[in-house]
Every structure is written in structure tokens, then in C-alpha cells.
């Protein structure tokens, strides 16, 4: 049957009307300080452009849904052209908005073909194998890119800072993945262990003069100890109850840090924390008495970026250790027991697995990695205060794990890049920044409800495709 244009136009008009009704207050008016009080600034041109875009977008979607993919994609192309055209719009964001709508329409047009292609590949017996190999290659490429990144010509200090931040969250995500993704324990207070690690390093280095590499394992142990201390009484709880207790624990740690002024210096925080050293060399133009600087040791002229590059490689190394450890644990009995606990605790008990001990190991190991990351954070910032360890941090780390696809290591990398990177890259959008962030999260949840990488790779195969005996590792 020939799809008719009139109902589609009507539908698009209704959508545009709704957009206009919602947008008139959000976009159309802005209150500004005009000296004598508050006044209005009118943004009706913005509103008109946005509503027109919504109209075109809805029309394009209806066309695509009725099998008219080419007109829909043409409409998308027009939107992109309008978006990137050098004409004057009231704000840069509108350019983005219009162009993005066009991209989405074209994506909608292409997606049926893409889906067909993907399903036909996945349906074939080699599809599973292809995905496996693809993921592996993608992982190695990411790793190579990460190793080479500091030497890329386009990389400036800002990018390096951001990369260090992203890698910190990748590491935290991988650590929390043990607790949430593998063992299925919803931990809303993960940042507490991060704080314990950070304060361990800050106090041990400023009070006792211990170096970063000496404190790193100690900080991990202390954090793991806190994990056991918290875990022992509360791991009998399940699901929501555990989440609430861990949430409370996170807040308690923050409040203790805030109020135990004698130890932690309270809200003023701890400053002048020494940075990490490389074989005893510090990264500073004027090394403290009795210490050598990196430039003196190597003879390379001093450059403030060296410190940043060194920090970058430290966190890359720490993150990779976390990853390797997790991958290995997953294939050990304890790792399988974690996953089994996530699937069904009652069945685990009937098989003679001690649920409390098994959960405790997951909790302690997750806390240990947060402790490592925390001491890195303290060494990088050189100043810490309870401000850095608020609940929103736990929420972001958890969002990284969930959006990445519970239990997937590579998904967490992608999610960390999205969740930490996007808000930074979108700084130009100004106040629309968090809107774009929210949109990205919604899009992930709509299109990949089980996370970016939802595929679970078995920890062992009886019939591995390359014919190796199963107990020789069986691939990552």
C-alpha cells in the first residue's frame, strides 16, 4: 500500500507542536540580570530552528518507518548541510543539534541494512568466532593506541590530562567490575575505598616520607582490609539492602575524613603530597635537597610534560594490571564461583560454595584496586580533600560498569571514554553540556539496554574453535 504523506505531515506537526510547547519555557525565555532586577531575554529564533529540526526529524523517521528510506536520508543530508552551513545561528549548539539530527536520520536509514549484515554474519557458524577475533583485535589496537598516545603530534597537555583522567576511571571501572559485574554485588560506596587508598598514600608519604612505589601495595592492602571490614557484616544482605549499606559506608568514610581533623586535616585537605618517582628521580625543575630530578638523571632538558607522561604510563600500567588480574581470576575457580553467585546464590549454597567467603574475596579485591587507584590519584593531584570522594563519583564509576555491559572489560573502556571524555569534549557547549551527556546515556540505554558490550565470553570452552585442549587456557 502506498504510504500517504498527509498523516505523516500531521504527525510531524503534532510532534513539532509538543516540542514548541515544551521548549518555549526552556529555550524561549532566559532570565537575565538587567541591573534594576531580573528581565527576560528572548530566544525565539533558537526555538524556531529547534522546532523546525524536530519537525524534519519526525517526518524523516516516519518516512523511514514506512519504507521510504531514500527520502528520509535525503532529508537527513539536508539537515546536515544546514547544520554545517556557514550561516549565522544564534548559538553553536544549534549547528550541532541540526547536524546531529541529520546524522541520526541517515543512521536510521542505513540501520536496516547494517542490521541485516550483522545478523547474517552472526548467524553463520564463523560469526561467533569472528566477533571473538574482532574484539581481541580491537582490544590490542586500543592498547597500541594507548601506549603510543603521548608521542602523537596532535596531543597537547589538555588531551594528556584528560587521558589520565579517563584511564583512572577505566581502572576504577575494572576494579568495580569484579564486585558488580562478576560477583553481582551492587556497591554504591566504591569511592570509599578510593578515598582510603588516597589518604593512605597522602598520610604515609607526608608523615613518614615513604615513596609512591612503597606505599602503593600498602594502600591497596589497607583498602582491601576496609573492604573485608565492611563486607563481613553486610554481605549477608542481598541486592537493594547491600546497595543501601554500601552507600551509607561511602558517606561514613567521607564524613570521617571531613571530621577527624587531627588525622586528615578535615575539609582543608592534605597538600604538598610528593609525586611518584622514577628510580628515585623526581619530576621537578628544582628537586628537593638530596634528590635528583628526571632531567638531571637522563640529561634530557626539563619539560613540564614529562611528569604528565610519566603519570600517564603509571596509570596505564596499573589499569592493565587490573585487567590482566581480572581476566585471570575469571578463569580460576573463584572467578567462576563469583559469576555463579551472581546468577544464583541459593544454587551455590546447595553446591557447597561458601557464599560469604566468596563474596568477601570479590569485595576485598575490588577494594584493593580502588586503593591502588586512590594512591595514584593522590600522587597525581598532590592535594586531596574529602571533596573529591563524594557519592557522585561512585555513581559515575557504577554507570561506567553498567553502560559498558556488566562483566565486559572492553565495554568499560568504551563507557569510560564516553562518560568521562564526552563531558570534557563538550565543554564548548556550555550549559548544554550535561544535556548532551544525558542524551548519550539515554541513547546507550535505548540501543544497547544490556550495555555497550553485552556478550558474555565463556571462561572455558570444551570445544575451542582452534582445536586446542580446553585446559590450556582457551583464549581470553
Amino acid at each position, binding site marked *: 500500500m502506498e504510504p500517504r504523506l498527509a498523516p505523516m505531515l500531521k504527525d510531524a506537526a503534532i510532534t513539532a507542536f509538543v516540542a514548541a510547547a515544551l521548549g518555549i519555557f526552556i529555550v524561549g525565555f532566559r532570565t537575565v540580570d538587567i541591573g534594576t532586577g531580573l528581565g527576560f531575554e528572548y530566544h525565539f529564533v533558537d526555538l524556531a530552528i529547534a522546532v523546525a529540526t524536530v519537525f524534519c526529524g519526525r517526518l524523516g523517521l516516519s518516512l523511514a518507518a514506512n519504507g521510504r528510506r531514500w527520502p528520509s536520508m535525503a532529508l537527513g543530508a539536508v539537515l546536515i548541510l544546514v547544520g554545517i552551513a556557514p550561516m549565522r545561528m544564534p548559538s553553536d549548539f544549534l549547528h550541532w543539534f541540526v547536524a546531529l539530527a541529520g546524522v541520526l536520520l541517515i543512521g536510521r536509514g542505513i540501520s536496516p541494512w547494517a542490521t541485516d549484515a550483522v545478523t547474517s554474519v552472526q548467524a553463520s557458524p564463523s560469526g561467533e568466532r569472528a566477533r571473538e577475533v574482532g574484539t581481541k583485535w580491537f582490544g590490542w589496537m586500543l592498547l597500541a593506541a594507548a601506549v603510543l598516545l603521548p608521542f602523537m603530534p596532535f596531543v597537547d597537555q589538555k588531551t594528556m590530562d584528560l587521558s589520565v583522567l579517563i584511564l583512572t576511571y577505566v581502572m576504577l571501572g575494572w576494579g568495580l567490575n569484579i564486585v558488580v559485574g562478576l560477583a553481582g554485588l551492587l556497591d554504591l560506596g566504591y569511592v570509599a575505598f578510593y578515598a582510603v587508598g588516597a589518604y593512605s598514600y597522602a598520610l604515609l608519604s607526608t608523615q613518614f616520607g615513604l615513596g609512591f612505589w612503597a606505599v602503593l601495595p600498602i594502600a591497596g592492602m589497607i583498602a582491601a582490609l576496609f573492604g573485608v571490614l565492611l563486607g563481613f557484616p553486610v554481605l549477608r544482605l542481598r541486592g537493594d539492602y547491600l546497595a543501601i549499606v554500601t552507600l551509607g559506608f561511602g558517606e561514613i568514610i567521607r564524613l570521617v575524613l571531613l571530621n577527624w581533623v587531627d588525622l586528615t586535616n578535615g575539609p582543608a585537605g592534605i597538600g604538598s603530597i610528593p609525586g611518584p618517582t622514577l628510580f628515585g628521580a623526581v619530576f621537578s625543575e628544582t628537586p628537593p635537597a638530596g634528590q635528583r630530578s628526571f632531567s638531571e638523571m637522563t640529561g634530557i632538558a626539563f619539560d613540564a610534560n614529562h611528569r604528565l607522561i610519566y603519570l600517564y604510563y603509571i596509570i596505564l600500567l596499573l589499569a592493565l594490571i587490573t585487567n590482566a588480574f581480572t581476566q585471570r581470576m575469571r578463569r580460576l575457580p*573463584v572467578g567462576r564461583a563469583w559469576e555463579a553467585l551472581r546468577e544464583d546464590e541459593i544454587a551455590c*549454597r*546447595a553446591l557447597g560454595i561458601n557464599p560469604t567467603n566468596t563474596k568477601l574475596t570479590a569485595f576485598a579485591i575490588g577494594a584493593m584496586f580502588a586503593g591502588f587507584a586512590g594512591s595514584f590519584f593522590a600522587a597525581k593531584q598532590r592535594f586531596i580533600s574529602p571533596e573529591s570522594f563524594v557519592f557522585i563519583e561512585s555513581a559515575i564509576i557504577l554507570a561506567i560498569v553498567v553502560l559498558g555491559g556488566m562483566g565486559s572489560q572492553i565495554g568499560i573502556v568504551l563507557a569510560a571514554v564516553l562518560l568521562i571524555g564526552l563531558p570534557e569534549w563538550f565543554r564548548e557547549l556550555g550549559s548544554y553540556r550535561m544535556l548532551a551527556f544525558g542524551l548519550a546515556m539515554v541513547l546507550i540505554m535505548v540501543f544497547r539496554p544490556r550495555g555497550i558490550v553485552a556478550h558474555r565470553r565463556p571462561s572455558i570452552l570444551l570445544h575451542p574453535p582452534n582445536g586446542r585442549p580446553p585446559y590450556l587456557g582457551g583464549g581470553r
Partner: protein
Amino acid sequence: MSAALIEVEHLTMRFGGLLAVDDVSFSARPREITAIIGPNGAGKTTVFNCITGFYMPTVGRLTVHAGDRPMLLERMMGHEIARKAGVARTFQNIRLFSGMTALENLLVAQHNRLMRASGWSVLGLIGAASFQQAEAAAIETARGWLERIGLLADADRPAGELPYGAQRRLEIARAMCTTPRLLCLDEPAAGLNPHESSELNELLVSIRDRDGVGVLLIEHDMSVVMSISDHLVVLDYGRKIAEGPPAQVRLDPAVIRAYLGAEEDEAANA
């Protein structure tokens, strides 16, 4: 008459005002299939949950005789019952680890042995040869069971994707991988077609004869119960109303009354 494998004495379980199990005593012998039957709500699953440590009995003693050491189940933690006393169970509603593969399910069941072999993960992390041997042996055990239940080709499929009958068999194999003395099966034939249920009979008989494991069985399917069980315990309203070999129990007037109703009820129904 050989010694009992498990002795249930004066087992009573009360939930608030409800008396679910009332002073039930019976015993099951090794290398025998003991079936617990009874109408819905008779307390069969409650007896099971007491034996396997999911409920703490209000009154009563549950003794497992392993060698010359009697072990009291009601004093053990839930997970110790499978590990120390060697009592494994399956569930009325299947409880497989559905996201994990069939092989992984069977390996998780060998957790305690593997955990010791992996030196509580330390030896495993460094890839010690002793652990790799233990893991290879565990995989062989699992492979053997997958072959026995006809799932060898499906070893690497997630357990939740398997057909219903296969999931039932896999759950039994998983319980057997804990190397139990006593295997407790809660309605293993529920939802199976006649062909699958005769396959199940063969499997249970081979578990009894080949593996020498005592089986305790709750079942509604009388074709299963009557053809393979050596001993029957009949419960009704939480009380034991009959016990003995199948041929004797099926003629017991109390049992007939419990299943078909008393004569005046029959008259009323007719």
C-alpha cells in the same frame, strides 16, 4: 538390612502457626532410591529444605552416616551440608547458572576441590602445574557427565538456552559433580514428556547402581516412582502415613484415602 545413609528422626517444622511437617521419621539407605510422595502441600519440599539446610527444623534430628562418623545436618551451615556431609540437591524450579555454559556449571559444582587445588587462587594465578592437572581432571569429570546426559555437543552453550529436559538433566549432573553420598531430587520429572522421563529413569538407576549414590526423590509422576524406587515414604498433611516397598505402599488403605479421598468423598464426587 544395611545401615541407613540418612536418618530423619522426629522432624517437625513449624512456620508460625502452620505445622508444615509433623513428627516425621524415616531413613534412606545407600545405593537405594527412596521416594517421598504425597499430595500437594503434604510437606515434601519442606522435608527436603530441612535436610539440605535451607530451613532450620523446629524439632528433630537429621543424621548422615558416612563411614563410622555420624554427622548432624541441623547443626551445619547451609553450604557445609553439601561439602562435608555430601548431600547434594536439585530444585523444583530449575536453578542452573543460566548465563554460564553447561561446562562451567559442572565446573562450579567442583568448586571446593578446585579451590584447594588452586591454593585458594594463589597457585592458580601463577599457573602451577598441580592446579592445571586438577583442572584438567575436573574437565574430564564434567565431560564424562555431559556424555552421560547426552549434552556433550552443547557443552559450550549457555545453560539457559538448553531445552527444558536438558536443563533438568544438567542440574542432576551438576549435583553429581559435587561427588555426593546422597542426591536429593525435587520433582526431577516435572514437565518432562514420556520419552524424557524414561531417560530420566535410566539416569537415576545408573546413578544408584554405577555411582553407588543414595537417591532421595520427591516425585508426582507415578511411572517414575513405581518403576525405579526401592522404598517409598508417603506424607499427607505433614505427617507420615505409610512407608515401605512400592508394591506394599500402593495397596495401603491410608495412601489410597490420601490420594483418592475417603469413601464418603467419593460418593459425594460421583
